[in-house]
């Protein structure tokens, strides 16, 4: 057991855990976060996705001891129900969910890709989502929401 300091969604936490503990379990059990969820424990489905230093991380296979001082963002770190992040708002507007279990993987992956390349094409976005699984098959609505967000973002990025 070890004391570990974490920065998650802009706040600081200290937890006392085995450093080998997957980050996901710490986020769920110690920090009470609901966004990242256990799907497979093998980095195959994306349900546990978080963003660390701008990079996508499968928190089910990331030992918490390896996180260091890197800032972690989970789905609930993007926006709030009162003030959703624009990509969350696009998903709300398009009704891009059924059970919704997979959404951390879908939304955070799309956001990270578009943060890195705002002009990403649909093919590029889809390719980036290759490791993300939605078993309700809400694919079309999700892609539509992502496109809507990307297009709005591109407009904002244009010089005034």
């Amino acid at each position: 057991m070890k004391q570990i300091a974490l920065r998650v969604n802009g706040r600081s936490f200290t937890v006392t855990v085995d450093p080998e503990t997957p980050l996901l379990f710490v986020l769920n059990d110690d920090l009470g976060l609901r966004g990242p969820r256990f799907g497979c424990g093998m980095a195959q489905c994306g349900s546990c996705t978080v963003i660390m230093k701008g990079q996508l991380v499968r928190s089910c296979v990331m030992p918490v001891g390896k996180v260091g001082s890197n800032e972690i963002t989970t789905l609930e770190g993007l926006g709030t129900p009162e003030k959703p992040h624009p990509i969350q708002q696009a998903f709300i507007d398009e009704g891009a969910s059924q059970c919704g279990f997979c959404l951390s993987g879908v939304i955070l992956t799309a956001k990270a890709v578009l943060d890195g390349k705002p002009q990403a094409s649909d093919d590029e976005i889809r390719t980036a989502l290759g490791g993300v699984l939605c078993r309700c098959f809400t694919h079309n609505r999700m892609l539509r929401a992502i496109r809507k967000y990307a297009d709005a973002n591109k407009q904002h990025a244009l010089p005034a």
Partner: protein
Amino acid sequence: MHSRRDFLKTGGALVVSFGAVTGLNAQGPFDTHPSHIDPKKLDSWLAVGADGVITAYTGKCDFGQGIFTAQTQLVAEELGVSVARVKLIQCDTSITPDQGTTSGSQSTPTNFNAQSLGLAAATAREALLNLAADQLANPVDKLTIKDGVISSAEGKHISYGELLGGKHFNLPLNANAKRRSPAQWTLLGQPVPSLDRTALMTGQFEFVHSIRVPGMLHGRVVRPPGMGASVASVDERSVQQIPGFRKVVVRKNFVGVVAETQHAAERAARQLAVRWNLGPELPPQKSIFEHLQKQPSQDALAVDSGNVEQALAAANNVLRARYTYPYQMHGSVGASCAVADVKANQATIWSATQSVYPTRSVIAKLLDLPPDNVRVVYVRGSGCYGLNGADAVSFDAALLSHAVGRPVRLQFSRQDEMMWENLGAACVVEHRAALAPDGTIAVWDRENWVASLGNRPGYDRPGNVISGMLLGYEPEALKIGPAKPPAGKLRNQSNTVPSYFAGCINGACSGGGTIRAERALTHTVRSPFFTGPLRSPLRIQNTFATECFMDELSAQAKADPVEFRLRHLNDVRVIGVIQAAAKAAGWEPHSPSRPKTGVAIGRGIACVDYEGGNGYAALIAEVNVDMDTGLVHPTRFVVAVDCGPISNPDGLTNQTEGGILQGMSRALVEEVTWDNRRITSVDWQSYQSLHLDYDMPKVDVVFVAPENVPALGAGETAITVTPAAIGNAIFDATGARLRHLPFTPERVKAALAAR
């Protein structure tokens, strides 16, 4: 707007306060509000608060199919209040009526017609109007309702809260209470955004995976290495040094571990030294269908005109075909999870089960408690599409909590989930049919073999899923023996009877079609694996075989597949969806070019009268087939759906699109695999599913919504026709007939070579 999150906040508070309750009162362990449970009483379904908020109680729960929102609309519509004024509580055995299982496309038929929740809401509206008539000294027909306020023409008004706030109705459901008709609807029929959306997108939504109870420990199970294996020995010393380890729980062949953290529980489950006696070897995968066809069977005849052998013997050009359908998985994206808090004489289980009351009953049996001392609270899990691991994990969590006397959260591993779920059944269908000289089908005989082991556990069958079997309970036994002659009304729950059959039993013909020399015989045989309802259970298997064979007959008759279907149909609703889909897709008779190399383009149609009267769909699939690689790529779907009056068109579209794309994944890539001992498709590399990188086709959804008919199910109709529509499109493109799912490139190439 009253969001799902707000509901859960209050729901969560309720849960926690219940968890803190100790000691039993004289009426029983829980404040179950007996009046809230008798389904004949209005107070079981609805309550009016002093603040005018309508609390509604339903036994049909939302897994993501949108029924929470639709039921909220239903109550709001009947009571003349805004959606925001309705607080819906779903599936909690202490406060909601027992509506069995939320499954089988039955939520809409059950709660949206003249019974149950819909009737309760209509009864409540009339009761409130009657109360207001007294108070306002006006006859009911002079009163109007606006957002929970009843007014008279001269401007007197009174609110629901003032009329009844906090008091019981003390009325029975009135079977004659008039439901509002679709023509009067202002809220039902509207695309109200699903109420869970904002909480889901912002990561706030409470899944069963997020439930945390004070004092809670963490569990994992240790499953056998294959079917039929039994525990030889368990060495607890192998895990005792793991920090946070608490207990090994062994009950017959059930093995589990409990620890203070998930990490410690996972380590203990991995490290625990268990010696197993192996069970019998499994039948080889490559000959599974032959194996199934050789087993002793429980037979049933849905229809039998008695003259099919004669008619086939008299015909020349009898067309025969054998269709096979593999085992497939629910494969929920989240591995199943439940939280159980078992005390000396009572238990609470937070579960994603589709069946809170049956689950309560089974858990009571496993724990040897009276059912009234067990409370099962539904909390959404990962989408289930039928019987996934939700019931099994709830049973197991209860066992672990019972063993340690503390609340336990049990999370299955991916392998626990996929190796031991109740699979969608493997199925064989053999057809024989012949055309008459006029180009109509003269005779059609259809015989199918269905693999079956276990099912939903129901109220008293724990052995129908792995958890119960490990404890020594048997799955429900098949009644091996020949079929009785068909009697009574035509039953087509599993869609064994094609829509084109006249469906005559003792002179009464209630099938959808014209074929009178007809037989549908089913052999149910023991499966080597657990099976259970998977979205469109047996309906998708049967419809794949029927609708592709119909296409074969159409080709033999050199007819257009749409026209050929219509030639054999009387049912106006099946005809209606076919015509609507054909029109929307711009379907015209054509002669496919069928190139030898490059990309071949084709289109195919399939239709269904789901379960014989529970929804109608016709789907046209357009596909590209790469003649060199055998790769099939659907490029467009056009579907027409008729489920009667539509509660929420946005929800229906979402379900229909999702159903079709899920059906496409099942048609193209999904197949359970095994070796001589165990299922080997146990993760997302070994079990294929189309991930989000797949270039999904556009789905155009057309509604056919006749008036003055009951509301029907809609979550399973579109998926049912998808594999057949794709198979028929492949034939159209290439002339190759695919009779086995999934349509992998290898199978497509083999079929191309066999043309």
